């Protein structure tokens, strides 16, 4: 059995430091790793990244993240990644990592992902250069996620993105902005491997649960959706124990 904690869209800046920490101090008693689905900061500055590392670093479990669109706002994503990496946090972008937990291998592949929309209402690689660049970005990031997922040998495989791979977890958002919240290509990438669970954020008004066309469970872990510091998911269960608080 493996338990993973997950949240997204924590948007850390100076004013948030300390808010999550009491719950994070309890996390190692509840889960074996923490995954964060992007929008770690407000504007993607180095200072905010240091605040994030202070708040979410130094736990007794591995922390694995992807960046979100907010983390790109200041065009300092490389420096942000460096700050996080120096703090012992694993940052995925078209890449994968494997954690050894209780004798099991947990594979995690991640990308920020991008928009583009879903079946019946998606952007096409056609027309103006700007539109083609938009869709090419969607396709490249999704393809790299698929390659990263298929490259991992593990007992359980998690796809970690910021943008959504399915429309079901966007329900609650205005239909008009679905194309800015995710894309079907991410779902195709997730279905191209033996993925156990897909986690994403970005859709603050969305819904918690969905599935890819191939049947992979999808969870929107955006903080305003889950309304707690993190959710905990149990993989490779031998028996189910829904209690998290130690007896």
């Amino acid at each position, binding site marked *: 059995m493996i*338990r993973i904690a997950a949240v997204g*869209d*924590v*948007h*850390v800046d100076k*004013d*948030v430091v300390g*808010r*999550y920490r*009491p*719950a994070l101090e*309890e*996390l190692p008693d*509840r889960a074996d790793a923490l995954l964060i689905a992007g929008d770690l900061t*407000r*504007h993607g500055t180095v200072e905010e990244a240091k605040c994030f590392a202070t708040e979410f670093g130094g736990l007794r479990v591995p922390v694995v993240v992807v960046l979100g669109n*907010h983390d790109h*706002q200041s065009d300092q994503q490389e420096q942000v990644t460096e700050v996080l990496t120096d703090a012992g946090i694993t940052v995925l972008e078209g890449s994968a990592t494997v954690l050894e937990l209780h004798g099991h291998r947990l594979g995690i592949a991640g990308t920020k992902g991008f928009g583009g929309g879903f079946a019946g209402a998606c952007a096409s690689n056609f027309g103006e250069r700007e539109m083609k660049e938009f869709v090419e970005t969607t396709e490249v990031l999704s393809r790299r996620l698929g390659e990263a997922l298929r490259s991992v040998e593990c007992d359980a495989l998690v796809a970690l993105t910021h943008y959504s791979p399915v429309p079901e977890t966007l329900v609650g958002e205005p239909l008009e902005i679905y194309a800015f919240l995710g894309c079907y290509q991410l779902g195709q990438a997730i279905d191209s491997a033996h993925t*156990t*669970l897909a986690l994403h954020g970005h859709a*603050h*008004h969305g819904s918690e649960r969905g599935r890819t066309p191939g049947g992979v*469970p999808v969870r929107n872990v955006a*903080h*305003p959706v889950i*309304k*707690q*510091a*993190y*959710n*905990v*998911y*149990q*993989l490779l*269960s031998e028996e*189910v*124990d*829904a*209690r*998290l*608080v130690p007896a």
Partner: protein
Amino acid sequence: MTHQFDLEAEIQRLLTEHDRVAEQGITVQHRENVVVLGGEVESAQRRDEICRQIATHFPDLEITCDIGITRAQAPAEVEEIS
């Protein structure tokens, strides 16, 4: 004159693009001369800054703020994925 839909769009762009706000998850409903704000943010300072910026840029509007602060307590349950 700014039309209702334009006003909502202008407020949402202000909340996203202003350096001191950067919020994309705030809902804006315009009812006659009252703007009702919804959604959740990470701190009371952020909620107050949203109201301050709208009041500064649109001084004739009355603002009703229903923005909440997202709770950050530890979970008590686990979900089994199968």
